[in-house]
């Protein structure tokens, strides 16, 4: 969610109960301007908040030239001092998934020890065989933010364009979806590198505009029904919540270019979702 419009849009996404306190809002307003100038970002986004048992993490994202590839994530415990999160690799995500379990603690230097899990799990000897390293909570945080962005970041169709050079930029002439379009899930897209787009048939591709349809559509997700689309605030604001990652809320005011998403939750994926629908 763009830091400049944060304070008007925060009320639109707090339908799931979590918000920011006045002190945090005030602190963010100050610190994110400093952040933007220090790191020379084009835009700063407030990505969200991950609840820990002892402390909470606040996550910000700085965007450079390319809106998808050129992103940097930072975290803070007090909304004031920001620290860069480590670069995420596939191996790191896999390791974190295997080692780090349970809730976040709120201590970035906490080490998740694979030996401890092996001791508790007992039966999971096969998993324990793999070479696993200790994972610090900072790495886990980086991997979680990366995964959430990859799996459930949402933008409305047409809000971003890909230039002929391949750069993804905001679309200045995006005027919002109309209310009928906004009620349909196929007008919202994953804001990450497309995966299923290439597998589409030529017939389906014919309708797509290469400048704006370069992302995967939400309605093509494999687990059908993993999104909850509702109109809130007197049916004026379209709110999409991910059921796969409880806490991810996307809002779009139909007819305007206002849109954004924020994650406020405990940073755990709902692995039980197939049972719950």
């Amino acid at each position, binding site marked *: 969610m763009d830091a400049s419009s944060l304070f008007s849009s925060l009320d639109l996404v707090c339908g799931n*109960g979590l918000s920011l306190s006045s*002190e945090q809002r005030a602190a963010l307003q100050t610190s994110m301007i400093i952040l933007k100038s220090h790191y020379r970002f084009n835009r700063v986004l407030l990505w969200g908040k991950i609840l820990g048992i002892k402390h909470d993490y606040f996550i910000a994202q700085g965007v450079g030239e390319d809106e998808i590839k050129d992103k940097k994530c930072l975290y803070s415990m007090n909304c004031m001092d920001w620290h860069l999160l480590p670069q995420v690799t596939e191996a790191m995500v896999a390791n974190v998934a295997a080692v780090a379990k349970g809730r976040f603690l709120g201590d970035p230097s906490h080490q998740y020890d694979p030996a401890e899990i092996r001791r508790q799990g007992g039966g999971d000897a096969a998993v324990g065989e793999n070479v696993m390293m200790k994972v610090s909570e900072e790495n886990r945080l980086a991997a979680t933010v990366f995964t959430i962005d990859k799996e459930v970041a949402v933008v409305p169709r047409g809000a971003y364009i890909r230039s002929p050079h391949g750069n993804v930029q905001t679309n200045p002439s995006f005027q919002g979806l109309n209310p009928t379009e906004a009620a349909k899930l196929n007008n919202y897209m994953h804001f990450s590198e497309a995966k299923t787009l290439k597998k589409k048939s030529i017939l389906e591709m014919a309708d797509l505009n290469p400048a704006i349809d370069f992302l995967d559509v939400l309605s093509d997700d494999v687990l059908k029904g993993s999104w909850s689309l509702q109109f809130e605030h007197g049916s004026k604001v379209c709110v999409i919540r991910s059921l796969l990652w409880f806490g991810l809320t996307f809002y779009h005011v139909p007819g305007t270019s206002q849109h954004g998403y924020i994650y406020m939750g405990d940073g755990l994926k709902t692995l039980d979702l197939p049972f719950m*629908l």
Partner: protein
Amino acid sequence: MERSVESRDDQRRQTAVCFKAFLLKKSTKTNLNLYDHLVRLLIRVMNERPENAVDVIEDLSHEVKRSMLQEKQSTLKDAPDATSAELLAEQQRALFSRGDEGAHDEIETPLPNVTELTYFLEQIGVGLGREEMQRILLALKQLVDMQPLERCRFWGKILGIEGNYIVAEVEVRDGEDEEEEEVETMHAKEKEGEAQEEDELDPFPKSSFKPPTTIPKEPRRSGTNKFTYFVCREPGLPWVRLPDVTPAQITVARKIRKLFTGRLDAPIVSYPPFPGNEANYLRAQIARISAGTQVSPLGFYQFREEEGEEEEEGARDSVEENPDFEGMPMQEMAESLSAWVHHIQHILLQGRCAWVNLAEKTEDLLEEDMDEEEKEEEPDEPEPEVGPPLLTPLSEDAEVNNTIPWSTRISSNLISQYAIAFVRSNLWPGAYAYVCGKKFENIYIGWGLKFLGEGFNPALPPSPQPEYPSGPEITEEIDPSVQEEEALREAQEEKEAALEGNDALEAEDEEEEEEGEEDDEEN
């Protein structure tokens, strides 16, 4: 020279005119021409002066064309259907109408102070947004005006896939809510009567299966049914009263993991099968959440002192506000969990707050049909379940999968003298309680699901009942080989041969005996 310059100018003019004629040529498809289009486009650029105009010129061009198409549409348009936003706005309008003020001024209303709640929740970073809370307050006012309520509280909000529930916790005034229950029992009796009639007409073979005795529902105003709950989907829409919860619903709700859809009449498809629809499931989850997360600062409530002083401590099931409560220092509330206590009774494994001895019940039933069956052995007296007593501190709550059940926080680290302390439940994500001086409040905003800490293991169906005892005569065996058959036949032949030998001997003996008998008869 001049002539040649003039002629060149003429030529240029000629070319320009030709090109303009080309630009003015109308498209055979759309009846537009490029010249007019460019004029419109440039006028638009001049009017709007967009930044980096060259980058967006294609889009502008598109839009100009599109706007032309709109103008061409007939002036006779269909009246657009009312959008959902308009319909909702019409319904919410009633919230903002001032009722007859004078009549309500004197009576003390049970309306909760949601404005204050909003203020405190905002401090701790929780809430639904100010306008939404204001709408909820107005909706609660509507509820209070319509129903005879003793107490009313904004319990929280439960999110669903298609819609959300706003939940109000109320106590209905004495004597006003009995009618409904009677009606229900009447219905039940009627149904039984019908069933019996059908049986007489066409008797079915009776199953020997005896369902386990159902645990009786707790009466209103006690245990899990202490409060009544009303829900509505959006402020302004009608409030719906949730049915009372039964122990069976609570026990099943503990075993399943389902999201709410937002429709109260939606069926719950699950295993083990849930007795009821979403309204019952919602009520069961509300009961579980209340029991797990309704907390208050130590000393705010005290046990109600009744005449029956000899009662044991565990049997105390009601609390009242302590008039001498002075408030706890904020630091203490924010640091130790033992400063917080539960004020709602723990729900036992049985699905009730007060334990009921089922063995006694079954005995009564047995006595009725004693003639049919021999009396079974006295069932062992089951151990009564005892939960933690009321006003147990949070520090004694059980951990789930190495996650401590509560996190304590403080609303501000910078100015701690005015900060308020709050706790967040880790078992029921979305449950909060804050305290500020003498004031405290609980709220739940979430999906209505408990934190498990590990993957959910659905209950497995019981193993199928064996149809008949498994023995050697019905188990499959490997076919014998030729050699084995030969061996068997040889063995059988030998046996037969031996038997024949025996038979021959026996036959001779018999003949002799018969002869002897004949002799006796003759004599």
